[in-house]
């Protein structure tokens, strides 16, 4: 499979303050994003996600290392011909209407008039703001701005989409819409490089993820390989148990939480949960649910952050 994005040893040093102190924001990032996959680039605020993205899109000059898009160095504007980029916290020309805005970006890409005429309503429909096509962007809500930002990234029907926090600022329905849109774009053969601080969203859509901490990629790989299939503990919810049994179960559990008339016990080992289940049955309590817990992307990132902090 050919790589759409390749980066080797990408570094960025910023000079800040009066004494031009050197701050290394990105410390040698390597990336391989294969065609047709959704690549999640995740990490906490200030980890270097946006700086890396800006180097890939030509907005920031790398201090060292190299990167290519479709085999063309990112320092060459031609590398951005098949690229759709949605920046974080999208701010666009407020004096333009939705249609004027997309027309402007379509023209910057060199799309012929007939193509723009056909593509603009399609894209507005796709992102769900066709009703606001003739409204000025200054009147758009935050969610609508996010959607029109996505629309300008899609206007040229690009092979590669780089989306910086596309779900941020959207309500749950909007987030689901964007997730579905990203998945349908992958089905259409597009490659998507996405950052998100909403790890549950990233976990739902990404094929491959890279975790960046302190400017370094500390973990990367396919999501199934990273998270594994093994069960990591279980949550048991019971009701109608005696106080003695509650104490006994609480002593075995990592965490115990009363929930009205019910009690939730979080066990580190699945075997402990099974033993607890037997005890509840023996002593006349009622089991409401037993949920095996798998490792989540959030668990993985937090464990990586803890390891980094220890070092």
């Amino acid at each position: 499979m050919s790589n759409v994005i390749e980066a080797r040893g990408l570094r960025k040093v910023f000079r800040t303050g009066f004494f031009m102190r050197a701050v290394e924001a990105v410390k040698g990032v390597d990336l391989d994003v294969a065609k047709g996959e959704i690549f999640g680039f995740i990490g906490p605020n200030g980890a270097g996600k946006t700086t890396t993205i800006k180097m890939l899109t030509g907005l920031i000059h790398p201090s060292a290392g190299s990167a290519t898009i479709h085999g063309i160095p990112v320092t060459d504007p031609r590398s951005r011909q098949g690229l759709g980029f949605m920046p974080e916290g999208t701010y666009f020309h407020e004096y333009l209407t939705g249609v004027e805005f997309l027309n402007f970006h379509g023209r910057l890409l060199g799309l012929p008039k007939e193509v723009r005429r056909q593509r603009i309503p399609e894209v507005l429909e796709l992102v769900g703001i066709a009703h606001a096509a003739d409204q000025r962007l200054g009147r758009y809500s935050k969610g609508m701005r996010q959607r029109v930002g996505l629309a300008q990234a899609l206007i040229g029907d690009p092979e590669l989409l780089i989306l910086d926090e596309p779900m941020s600022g959207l309500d749950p329905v909007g987030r689901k819409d964007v997730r579905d849109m990203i998945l349908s774009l992958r089905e259409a053969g597009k490659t998507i490089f996405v950052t998100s601080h909403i790890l549950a969203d990233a976990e739902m859509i990404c094929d491959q993820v890279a975790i960046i901490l302190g400017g370094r990629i500390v973990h990367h790989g396919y999501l199934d390989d990273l998270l594994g299939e093994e069960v990591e503990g279980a949550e048991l919810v019971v009701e109608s148990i005696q106080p003695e049994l509650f104490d006994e179960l609480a002593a075995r559990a990592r965490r115990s939480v009363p929930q009205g008339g019910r009690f939730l016990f979080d066990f580190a080992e699945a075997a402990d949960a099974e033993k607890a289940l037997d005890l509840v049955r023996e002593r006349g309590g009622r089991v409401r649910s037993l949920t095996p817990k798998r490792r989540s992307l959030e668990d993985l990132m937090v464990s990586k952050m803890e390891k980094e902090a220890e070092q």
Partner: protein
Amino acid sequence: MSALARIAVVAENTAREAVRDKLLYNLLLFAGLMIASSVLLAQLQVGYDERIYNDVGLATIAFFGVLIAIFVGINLVYREISLKTVYAMLAKPVHRWEFMLGKYFGLLGMLAVEVAVMSGFFLAVLWFKSAPIYTGMLWAVGLIYLELALVTAIALFFSSFSTPYLSAMFTVALWITGHLLADVRAFGQGPDAEMVRPVTEFLYWALPNLDRLDIKGDAASGLPIEAARVGWSALYAVLYSGVLLVLATVLFRRRDFR
């Protein structure tokens, strides 16, 4: 798609943004009132009517033109960066120099319309008062426009690496100095100024000499103006603006959008 086409797209969008800026209309309104006030001013000094219409009219076109060039011009570039609208544009196959030239020519387009509107006010006053229209005044308006083009290039140069406040301050300072360079040079040529002469000579030749483009006085008096004088002045303005634009694009190219 050619570079020229991309420059045209950015220029058109810049002009559209400027045209939708309320500040522009406020400044044009004040310019119109100022030009119209020349009719009242002329009544204060009998016998100098035509001179007053011409002086006030041309000075207003120049002054409000510079105000618009500096404040609307600087804001248009700075806003693209501070509001991050530039991100989505430069993440397309657009060279940074194309973006800068697009902004520049968009501003020049807006300034052309603005000078034309103010000239319209001025001509309306002359027509209303049945005053003569000298050819020199058309040359003067042409050179005012080239001065605005040069001031816009200065503003763009500073805003390619500085904040809008500093850019405005530097540009205003350079505009004022540019009109005083003949005096600066004359000072350096005085008998007691040998020590500062190299500095004044350097300033005279290095800074934009805007006095070269100022023929308002002669034009307002109806004096003949040589075509060669206008031609050399125009060439000077175009070349100086060109050098500033090259420097602005070099600085803008090196810039990181953090």
